[in-house]
């Protein structure tokens, strides 16, 4: 039993794993059974007409060699023409239909991938780079296309055509197929035997490719540092030695491919030739008529064609396996939090927030990020949360939005454990406003509409006014239709935050979480943001992750977090008495001029 490693996971029996994945892929074709049958039919007819074409051609030559007349020849000539057209049509049909199946399936797969990631986020995304996820969605799923469009049918053809050829050979004389069989096995067997060598080299190649590329990425992203520290020449030298190491592995790969290619090609042609030699010997002894010789040679050659294709297919299987494995891993990803089946309808809920003895860690091996955290915010209250970076403030937000569940304790809104609320209801209750709010690759209008998909354009403008961003938007040439996001207009941090405020205003949720900006903004932006936030906070229960002195001082109450624990809490005036952590924080903050 050999082990194989696919992307770091070992499988005890690679054959079993291969079969499992291939079978699972096959089952996905179920909605397209009909088309699959059609394309199989086309593939079979294609193979049959290819063989028939070869046979008829050979027979024509044989007949003519023996001496025949036009009348006898004519049906063969007509068959020749007919088969030519039939083969072309069937070949086209097989390719087209199988690709249609494949690509429809891919579309479904990509959609399913997103549906699988959505409930598992942000936990799923946290441990991964989005580049890897995208590569999986686009490239890996695309590789799986190979299975549907380039594996199933060729495999079918590779079984049918050689079989037909062997049967025809056998009808001439039983010894001919026997002569052919060893060569057939060689051509099939050599790639199989050698494939683990090829696999090992291919894996090595993939790794080295990845490292060379990562090194290049690093060298470009860190170019500023390299230049400033004068490390240019040495980095260049590293680039060169990486390339050299890579080419060495590529040489081994080429050698492997070259040997494999040469061997299989040689074997197949020698095999056909051997059948011919045997045929010649038998004609010499008078056991067979000479006009069958062309037929023998052509049938023998026809047997090998698809079999050589199978070697190519086998190579693809390794790639398909790796890709399919990654895709299935996502599809099977369990959600971190689940909705409970007996979810009650939310009536009207009082917008109070409470954390009751919450302890939470992201990962069982990691230390807890929050420990026995308890605090509460009454309806309409403004609570400031303060503490050094890494003290757990962002985690509070994650738990309140129920992206994770605490291991101990509970988060409560309006007296209800949020686990008893549906996701939709919960997230309708809470808005988050941040400076680095994510702006989507669409228009400003649509970006704001995210707050409430049912909002009208008038609602959106109204919210923008209250967020003091309306004037800025209308000052742009395309106004609300200006595209934002990665390929769109670049806007400043302050403007981004005001859009975030507009979104929250549009959503109009009773509980607000405000993640204050940390970087400095010019006073105009500052003022507008402050006013917008004031508009937003009216009548809402607000939790502010505070960085500005003014915010902290104006809050109703302050909660001080340090290393995941609540160390102090009270009003600003109370906390300033004496030498507390809070007082220290305030003193540092006072030092800041912008």
């Amino acid at each position, binding site marked *: 039993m050999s082990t194989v490693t696919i992307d770091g996971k070992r499988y005890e029996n690679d054959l079993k794993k291969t079969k499992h994945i291939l079978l699972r892929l096959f089952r996905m074709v179920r909605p397209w059974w009909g088309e699959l049958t059609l394309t199989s039919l086309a593939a079979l007819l294609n193979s049959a007409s290819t063989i028939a074409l070869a046979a008829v051609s*050979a027979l*024509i030559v044989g007949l*003519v060699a023996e001496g025949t007349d036009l009348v006898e020849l004519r049906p063969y*000539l007509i068959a020749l023409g007919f088969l030519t057209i039939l083969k*072309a049509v069937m070949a086209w049909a097989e*390719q*087209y239909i199988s*690709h249609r199946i494949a*690509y429809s399936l891919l*579309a*479904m797969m990509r*959609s399913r991938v*997103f549906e699988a990631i959505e409930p598992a*986020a*942000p936990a799923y995304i946290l441990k991964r*780079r*989005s580049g890897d996820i*995208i590569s999986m969605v*686009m490239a890996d799923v695309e590789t799986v296309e190979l299975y549907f469009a380039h594996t199933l049918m060729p495999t079918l053809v590779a079984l049918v055509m050689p079989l037909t050829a062997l049967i025809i050979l056998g009808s001439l004389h039983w010894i001919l197929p026997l002569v052919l069989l060893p060569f057939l096995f060689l051509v099939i067997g050599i790639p199989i035997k050698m494939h683990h060598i090829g696999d090992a080299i291919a894996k090595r190649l993939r790794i080295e490719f990845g490292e060379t590329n*990562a*090194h290049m990425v*690093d060298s*470009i*992203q860190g170019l*500023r*540092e*390299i*230049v400033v520290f*004068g*490390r240019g020449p040495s*980095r260049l030298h590293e680039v060169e030695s990486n*390339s*050299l190491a890579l*080419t060495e592995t*590529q040489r081994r790969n*080429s050698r492997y491919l*070259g040997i494999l*290619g040469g061997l299989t*090609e*040689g074997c197949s*042609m*020698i095999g056909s030739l051997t059948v011919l030699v045997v045929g*010649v010997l038998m004609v*010499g002894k008078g056991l067979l008529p000479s006009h069958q*010789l062309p037929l023998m*040679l052509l049938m023998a050659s026809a047997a090998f064609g698809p079999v050589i294709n199978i070697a190519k297919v086998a190579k693809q299987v390794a790639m398909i396996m790796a890709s399919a494995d990654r895709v299935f891993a996502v599809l099977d990803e369990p959600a971190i939090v689940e909705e409970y089946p007996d979810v009650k309808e939310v009536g009207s809920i009082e917008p109070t927030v409470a954390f009751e003895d919450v302890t939470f860690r992201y990962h069982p091996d990691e230390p807890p990020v929050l420990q026995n955290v308890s605090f509460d915010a009454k309806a309409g209250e403004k609570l400031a949360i303060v503490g*050094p*970076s890494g003290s757990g403030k962002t985690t509070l937000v994650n738990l309140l939005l129920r992206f994770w569940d605490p291991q101990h304790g509970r988060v409560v809104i309006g007296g209800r454990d949020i686990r008893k609320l549906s996701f939709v209801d919960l*997230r309708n209750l809470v808005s988050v406003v941040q400076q680095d709010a*994510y702006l989507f*690759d669409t228009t400003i209008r649509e970006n704001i509409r995210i707050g409430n998909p049912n909002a009208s354009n008038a609602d959106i403008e109204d919210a923008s006014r209250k967020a003091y961003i309306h004037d800025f938007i209308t000052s742009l040439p395309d106004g609300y239709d200006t595209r934002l996001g990665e390929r769109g207009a670049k806007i400043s941090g302050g403007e981004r935050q005001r859009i975030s405020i507009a979104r929250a205003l549009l959503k109009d949720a009773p509980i607000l979480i405000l993640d204050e900006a*940390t970087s400095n903004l*010019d006073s105009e932006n500052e003022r507008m943001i402050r006013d917008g936030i004031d508009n937003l906070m009216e009548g809402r229960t607000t939790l502010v992750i505070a960085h500005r*002195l003014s915010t902290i001082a104006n809050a109703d109450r302050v909660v001080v977090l340090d290393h995941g624990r609540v160390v102090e809490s009270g009003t600003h005036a109370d906390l300033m008495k004496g030498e507390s952590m809070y007082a220290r*924080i305030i*003193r540092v*903050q*006072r030092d800041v*001029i*912008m």
Partner: protein
Amino acid sequence: MKSRLRGIFLLCGIYDMYKYSDAARSTISWRLIKLARSAWAQILLAVIIGLGVTLINLAQLSITGYAIGQMFSGADVSVVLPLLLIAAIMIILRAWLTYLKEMIAHYIAAGIKIALRNRIYAHLLALGPGFLEQRQTGELLAAAVDGVETLEIYFGKYLPQLIITLLTPIFIFTYLTILDWQLAIILAIFFIAALTMPQWFNPSARRERRRHWAAIAELNSYFIDSLQGLVTLKAFNHGKQRGDEISQRATDLCSAIMRVIGINFAYIGVTNLIMTSGAAVALGWGAVRVMEGTLSIDVLLIVLLLGNEIYKPILELNTAYHGGLQGATAAGGIFNLLDTEPDVTDTPNATSTPPLSPSIGFEDVSFGYDEGKRPALLNLSFEINPGETVALVGRSGSGKTTVVNLLLRFWDPQHGRITLGRRSLRDYALDTLRAQISVVSQDTYLFHGTIADNLRISKPDATEEELEIAARHANAHDFIKALPQGYNTIVGERGTRLSGGERQRIAIARVLLKDTPILLLDEATSSVDAENEAIIQEALDRLKRGRTTLVIAHRLSTVINADRIIVLDSGEMVESGRHDDLIRAGGIYAQLVSAQRVS
């Protein structure tokens, strides 16, 4: 910004370059060939081997055909078998040549890869960080990484293949004409038809390919957008809707590619039909002629065996064309890059002697990043004497970072000059200049490697002791030691993530190791982060001692202790002096300081 993904830029980049290459393909070809200068001999060898394979194939088929013909005329087996033995030897020879072809392709590719990657990276170094900041990293990576790979395949496989398939028909048809000129003509007619008729599909093929690219890019970027903003989507209960929209785009992509495939397969199907018909017609007509006695059976046998071999060059030409297109596209991007002249280079008289004294001067400097946009700096003049600490203060966008970039000579000012030790920056070699200055900025890039590696960037031959001393002075030693692998902890994008404060302290340690006379410091922005701040402040104070320092200041304590303060507004200096004087003056500075304070 650093986490931007290659994928979408690669696709958009290639899509854009596709349009460019379509128009300029003729001009690029010659230059493209010259890129492979070093590999010409090997490419020639690959072509010769390829042709050799074809010739041996022809010979082998002919001998086999002849042998069968002999059997028809009743020759003795002992005459025919040696012929077949020769055919067998030829087969083995051909297999060996196939292997050689693969190896030659590799050596060509390897040579190209090494030469080109070096050239590209060296050029990027010359272009400098100034150029880099104006571009998307993804674009550059597409050229430096994927572009080079594409070109390897282009020169290793496709170019030789192209030449071979252009020459092969000459051999084949010459041979056929010798055998029987009439059949040769028939086959030639179908050959030309197979070559030309499918070209009719080209305009629609191009159009559909473009739409396909667009659909890929659309789905790609939409998906990325959805992933990056997934938390926002979930928080606003927008997840399901987004899923539907992705489903829609995925289906669009399917339709787009099916249209491309429809045309491709029609193209292929027509080509195949013509080829098979050609073989059939030649065979049929040849058979009739053998019956009539105007053609020898041997020739007919050879035609039968040659069959589709004749048309193989056409199929290979199609594949080669695609490879060629990709190669030209990739080359377009690379040439774009190599053609860009660096804005800043060593002047001919640049000196390597370090400045006598670490003083800095800006003399009436004006600079703008883009023509026609507002200048980032306008008539800026100030001086920093050796050992002084000068604080630069101003709102975001006032030009502070630009001052740093110009001092490091990532750009040259359009007007005025910058001096170091009373000599213009341009008089110094770039290496010498940068050896005088250290920078601690807000976001520190850590390379993939150990912490020790990252520290050694400033002084490659530093001993472990020196590293530790620097780390201690930077208040970094303690947290480094607390990590499981200590100084050998792997950091960088794929390594352990360090907090902003920890990264900054590593940056401080680096600078301490480099020990330059001039220091440029970009202070961390405010965060109510008592513990970290105090530690970092202490380390920074240690750093500033004895160096000429320019600080982009955010802290009251910094400006109060600075020898001088320069206040920038929209690229111009509006005030300068010591803290107390400026407060008394009651200008912009006084406003900035009082705005944030809460009594």
